[in-house]
């Protein structure tokens, strides 16, 4: 299953998709207070099930596939944005 490229999607578009994903799955988290450059887990309390649902929704919105190995190496939202924007 090959994902469509996200090249061409701006950082802002990816952030908007992230914000929408957080809002749907974990509405109690104020996305605007999250620092993109800091590890996510140091800023918010979020369990693996919620995080997984957020990532799944984000993948649907950006039409991408992020493997578990890749995901485990991404600590900040900037890491994830950079990764998504460079998928071929």
């Amino acid at each position: 299953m090959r994902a469509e490229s996200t090249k061409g999607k701006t950082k802002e578009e990816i952030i908007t998709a992230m914000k929408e994903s957080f809002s749907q799955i974990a509405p109690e988290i104020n996305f605007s207070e999250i620092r993109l450059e800091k590890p996510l887990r140091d800023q918010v309390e979020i369990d693996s099930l919620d995080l997984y649902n957020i990532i799944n929704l984000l993948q649907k919105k950006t039409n991408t596939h992020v493997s578990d190995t890749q995901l485990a190496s991404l600590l900040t939202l900037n890491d994830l944005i950079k990764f998504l924007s460079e998928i071929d």
Partner: protein
Amino acid sequence: MIFEMPMPSLGADMDEAKMVEWKIKPGDAVKKNQVIASVETTKSVIDVVSFHEGKITELIAQIGDVIQVGHPILKMETAEEGIITTPPPKAPAKPEGERVRISPAAKKLAEENHVDLSQLKGTGSDGEITLKDVQTKIEVKTEKTYSGINLREAIAALMAKSKKEIPHYYLHREIQVDTFMNWMDEKNKTLSIDDRLLIPSALMKAIVLALKKFPQLNGYYKNGKFEPSNQVHLGIAFSIKDGGVMAPALLNAETMSLSDFNKAVLSLAERTRKGGLKSRELSDGTMTVTNVGDLGSDKVFGIIFHPQVALVGLGRMRKAAVVDLENKVTSGFVIDVTLSADHRVSDGLYGARFLNEINKILNDPKMLEGE
């Protein structure tokens, strides 16, 4: 025969419950394990299922009634034979005068704070004394609650009992999971986003498979002896949005494929947070798993949920230095797995072999697809 169904015990420390909703009426036919009512305990609002098949003839308990465990809640006509009916336990002698109507949570708080109920005027329906009435009297702030009931107090009581009664031993093993992660990546590439397997689900499936080979860690310690269970009802600790933890059981986990197990975990998580848990899911866990890796902790040596005999802890999956067979240092994914177990039932060698089995499964992940 006409049979009186009693209020079941839906937890180790449950003495009574308040009837909040009937889901059937006289004349209805019910099947075994069909949900027939919702009751409120000190822990939560729980669904009660019918233990027999038959036709409802009378609803004995009324909405709002507080019924002790063992006391009848309905009458049912059934063709089943061999139903053993035991007389309800003797209710404690009631003081003379008017019967006090009070919810279980309010009664518990009042007892703990030595509140004289005869001095309280209830503001609930039919003059029932509510939790708020007791709180107002003793000016106690409730901590975070779930369904209006103080979950924190229920957890405190259960954990104190476990720590007092169960002689725990503890083990830890760091497991390399690169092979497992690569297998998950390849597996998930073949699945749609909605069907993707979760890493925590696959890790828990490995625990279920290992438990089938180590029965001394799966069951209950009751009345001075261990009762092993043929089924694996895996308790999974979930954080609740308002605070606290609940650990409902994923029933008959040993019969499920990896895919079905994954879906069952997601369903259980959703129903834990939004309501809709079945009574057996709250009372029948045979062993529990807690995942502290979500919040960044590497390992946990947890307290066993009485009357179970073991608890497995999963830590944070992380990159670490690993030394391969040629003594080369590289980096790889590892996870710390811990075991807390009841020393009356098993010993450290047995527990160590159990952790070895989990390691073996995670390093040969196609075993996860076995049942």
